[in-house]
C-alpha cells in the first residue's frame, strides 16, 4: 500500500491532517499501538517542519508486510549544517512559531528516535528530504 499527501507551508490550521490520515491507515491495518505512535510522532514532526520552514512539501508512505517507509520531501530553504540541525535544542524557527510551542529544536531528534532507520538529505536553497523506516513486527512495538 502507498499514498502521497501534499503539505502546504505556513498552513498551521491544517497541521496534522497528513499524520492523522497515516494514523487511521495504520490502525486499520491493526498494527501494534506502539508502532502507530512512533510512526505518527515521526510523521507529525516532519509535517510540522515542512509547515514551519518550507513553501510546500509531500509526505509519501509505503507499507509492506515488514516495513513502513515514510518519505518527506520539501521545497524549503534546505539545511546548511545537518549535524547542527540534528542537535537537540537547535532551531531556526521564528519567534511567533516558538510562541505556539514549536521550534524547541526537538523535531529532527524526535524523528530519529522513533525510527529504526533514518536518513536526511538537504541542499541549501533547494530543499530537504527525510526517509523514515519503521520495522513492522507486531509483537515488538516498543523501541527503547
Amino acid at each position, binding site marked *: 500500500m502507498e499514498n502521497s499527501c501534499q503539505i502546504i507551508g505556513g498552513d498551521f490550521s491544517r497541521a496534522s491532517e497528513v499524520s492523522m490520515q497515516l494514523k487511521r491507515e495504520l490502525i486499520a491495518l491493526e498494527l501494534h499501538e506502539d508502532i502507530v*505512535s512512533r510512526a505518527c510522532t515521526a510523521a507529525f514532526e516532519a509535517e510540522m517542519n515542512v509547515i514551519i520552514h518550507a513553501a510546500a512539501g509531500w509526505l509519501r508512505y509505503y507499507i509492506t508486510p515488514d516495513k513502513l517507509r515514510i518519505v518527506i520531501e520539501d521545497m524549503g530553504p534546505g539545511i546548511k549544517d545537518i549535524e547542527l540541525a540534528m542537535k537537540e535544542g537547535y532551531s531556526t524557527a521564528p519567534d511567533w512559531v516558538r510562541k505556539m510551542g514549536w521550534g524547541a529544536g526537538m523535531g529532527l531528534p*524526535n524523528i530519529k528516535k522513533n525510527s529504526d532507520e533514518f536518513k536526511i538529505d538537504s541542499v541549501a536553497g533547494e530543499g530537504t528530504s527525510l526517509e523514515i523506516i519503521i520495522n513492522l513486527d507486531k509483537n515488538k512495538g516498543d523501541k527503547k
Partner: protein
Amino acid sequence: MKLADLAEELSLKVLTYNEGTSREVSGCYISDMLSDVMANSKKGDIWITIQAHTNILAVANLKNLSGIIVVNGREVDDETLKRAGAEKVTILSSSLSAFEVAGKIYKMIM
C-alpha cells in the same frame, strides 16, 4: 482514576468532548513545548499547558493522552473548541496555575 472524577475533584470545566471523561488518567505531563510533549508524554497522561491553539489537538490525539488541562484561566481558541470533538480530545480548563493543578493531581494519582 477516571478523568471525570479528577475534573470533579479539581473543579475543572469540561470544554470539549465530554465522552472522553470516561478515560483513565494514568499520569501527567506538563509542558508548553509541543515537541517536548510529543517526545516525553505517555499514553493516558493528562497534559497541563497554556497552549490553546488547534495544534494541541493533534498532539493529544497522536499521543493518546487522556485529556488537556488549559491552566491560568487562559481562553481556548474558538477553532480549537470547534474541532476537539471530531478529534476526540477532551479539553478542561482551570483558573489555577500549572503548579497548583499538578500538585493536586500528584496527590491523587501517585
